């Protein structure tokens, strides 16, 4: 089972995990990213490249399915304006093998951060805004899977 979604709405991690749990694999791993309120951040706005995003996420899911013995993969990424504490992204995998489920989650979130066309703009309490800069550590994390 493969499910890939890009949406402004929040998602339900428990419901997504239960859906993958119902496949009967035995093991369900997940990662949820939230907006952090560092440095007086008051909001993040996520922009994306709509025609490319779904394909990029679908490609990532297919790569994970090809690389690990997974029964299910769910990827959800939110877009639009989010505030500290809000969920941004969910990666969820199901497998008979717990290591496969957890490694595939790590792979998917690492790759998503370098391969999926999303950009974050930050708004701070003093009115300043700025685009988040890509981090070299994210590029390195993605490359360890090559």
């Amino acid at each position, binding site marked *: 089972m493969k499910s890939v979604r890009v949406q402004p709405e929040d998602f339900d991690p428990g419901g997504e995990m239960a859906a993958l749990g119902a496949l009967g694999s035995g093991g369900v791993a997940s990662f949820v*990213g939230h907006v952090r309120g560092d440095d007086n951040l008051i909001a993040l706005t*996520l*922009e*994306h*490249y709509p*025609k*490319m995003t779904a*394909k*990029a996420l679908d490609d990532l899911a297919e790569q994970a399915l090809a690389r690990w013995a997974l029964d299910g993969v769910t990827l959800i*990424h939110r877009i639009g304006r989010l505030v500290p504490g809000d969920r*941004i*992204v969910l990666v969820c995998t199901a497998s008979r093998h717990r290591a496969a489920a957890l490694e595939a989650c790590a792979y998917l*979130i690492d790759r*998503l*951060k*370098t*391969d*999926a*066309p*999303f*950009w*974050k*703009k930050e708004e701070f309490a003093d009115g300043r805004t700025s*685009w*988040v*800069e*890509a981090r070299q550590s*994210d590029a390195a994390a993605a490359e360890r899977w090559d």
Partner: protein
Amino acid sequence: MAHVTLLYFASMREKLGREMEERVLPESARTVHDLIGWLVTQDADYASAFAEPAKLRCAIDQVLAPFDAPIAGAREIAFFPPVTGG
């Protein structure tokens, strides 16, 4: 003479003040690199927006592509900063 849609995202969109445009490319533009070289001659805004190509990424028809990728047959070419989702 090839017609192509150019798309700009995030800081590129803001620097250029537009998110898309239709362009007729010269035959001399064979790669992404050539395309950038031609665009920066068109307007000072382009020269500024494309001033640091190392900080830019490109997708040809919705697939990430290096700057030496050929653009023959491309219908949509997008420029944007390195992605920051997740």
